[in-house]
């Protein structure tokens, strides 16, 4: 069961390193066995995803993955994302942005004064870097394997199997065909053959964040302001946890609605300073109208106001 030696060229990998004494990942790479000039330029327009782009940028600078000068590569990575303009779909853009963000983080860290690794942010950055490189190395391995696959498939495409089948006098001896799947199974098979597409899966978990109603939050704000007369926005949201951004946003939107109804006055002394909110809606029982403009759900679900 020895593997066939032919058809398994080791894919070339630019591996000139700035530090010649570092003997790692690129050690298995051979000196370019075939002319490969200009391939980079041609293929850069064709990269397959963020890792592919990153790998190509790294190899353009003749750096090994494990010894990357990130600043340069990061800048070019960003340049490519910009250059792509609005042509990308959301999925694709997101994937590139994740890598870009990591690279930028790393570049930013590089620009800061070098210090001991002491705080958690530094450690997180290191982890991010290692994770990114680990994924990049893994991707590079599969990419090299893909090159081997190409070589093998090309080689195999030059072999044609004999599929001539039986001579007529032998075919006469063939037993009767048995089709045991029945008409329904047959129809299912036809559909499968003609429509061989995996079931589309739409992941909606991220949409199902708990909904926060602006109207409800307006109720909360009004009650507090009626009680205190005046409060800063910071106070109005102080009981909310750091993860409860949605409620914070909802309360802020509620404030805007109340402002529009002239039920509150807003005052901010300086930029980024505390936002003071004063109740101007009087003491009456009648509450200001807060529309459900922000609460409208795709489905006509009744918002019950308490």
């Amino acid at each position, binding site marked *: 069961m020895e593997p066939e030696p032919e058809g398994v060229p080791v894919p070339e990998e630019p591996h000139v390193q700035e530090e010649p004494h570092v003997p790692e990942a690129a050690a298995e790479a051979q000196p370019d066995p075939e002319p490969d000039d200009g391939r980079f330029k041609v293929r850069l327009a064709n990269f397959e995803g963020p890792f592919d782009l990153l790998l190509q940028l790294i190899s353009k600078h003749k750096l090994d993955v494990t010894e990357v000068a990130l600043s340069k590569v990061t800048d070019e990575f960003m340049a490519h994302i910009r250059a792509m303009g609005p042509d990308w779909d959301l999925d694709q853009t997101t994937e590139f942005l994740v890598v870009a963000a990591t690279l930028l983080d790393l570049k930013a860290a590089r620009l800061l004064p070098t210090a001991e690794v002491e705080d958690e942010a530094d450690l997180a950055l290191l982890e991010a870097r290692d994770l990114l490189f680990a994924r990049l190395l893994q991707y590079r391995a599969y990419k090299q394997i893909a090159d081997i696959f190409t070589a093998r498939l090309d080689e195999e495409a030059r072999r044609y199997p004999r599929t001539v*089948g039986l001579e007529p006098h032998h075919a006469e001896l063939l037993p009767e065909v048995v089709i045991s799947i029945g008409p329904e199974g047959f129809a299912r098979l036809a559909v499968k053959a003609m429509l061989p597409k995996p079931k589309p899966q739409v992941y909606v978990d991220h949409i199902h964040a708990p909904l926060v109603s602006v109207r409800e939050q307006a109720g909360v704000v009004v009650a507090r302001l009626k009680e205190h007369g005046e409060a800063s926005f910071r106070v109005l949201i102080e009981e909310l946890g750091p993860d409860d951004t949605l409620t914070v946003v909802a309360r802020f939107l509620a404030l805007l609605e109340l402002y529009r109804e002239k039920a509150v006055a807003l005052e901010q002394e300086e930029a980024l300073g505390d936002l003071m909110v004063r109740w101007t809606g009087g003491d009456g029982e009648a509450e200001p109208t807060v529309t459900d403009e922000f609460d409208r759900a795709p489905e006509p679900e009744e918002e019950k106001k308490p």
Partner: protein
Amino acid sequence: MSAVSTQNSAEDSSGSPVGDLGSAVAGLDLKPALEAVLMVVDEPATEEHLAKILQRPRRAVADALRELADEYTVQGRGFELRLVAGGWRYYTRPAYAPAVEGFVLDGQHARLTQAALETLAVVAYRQPVSRSRVSAVRGVNCDGVMRTLLQRGLVEEAGAEPETGAILYRTTNYFLERMGLRGLDELPELAPFLPEADAIEGETLEGVPSFDPDAPDAPGYEDADD
């Protein structure tokens, strides 16, 4: 998926075997080249045709074929090369017919392979249909399988496509008999088994650049957009 459409633009210059086919063929040893060609033909090939494809004088081809036939006989091969009905073809040597018959009667031939069944299903619901169209729907070359179906009498030729001249195929009465159906109209409707009605054509899917859950044919697309 931007790279999909560019698939073979770069490779064509170097790797394509089609480009310099002419000179490549002329440089091949004649006898093994004949062996290679005859290994894949299922209709007897005439000396003229072989000579033309291999770019040799017919005389040389005729001599080489006879030499090959003699070699196989001398070496006691289980196959032989014979001139039948004006053409050359590999046949099993009659002395080894019992082995071939053992293979034919082995029992597994009562059943069709999955590939054959699927191809048969496509023909049944798309007839009359050309081989290339069936291949396009299934995404793999169906020549060998179609040959089996013809051999088993489950499909037959049904004229040619006017535009392309491609041979069309349809199912036979024997097919209906083996399926236990009285007519093609008794084939079950596909609709109940389809996820979506408008996405049957396999070829049209081929061109879709990247799978997109929000694609226009996905349920609820219009709602999701606003």
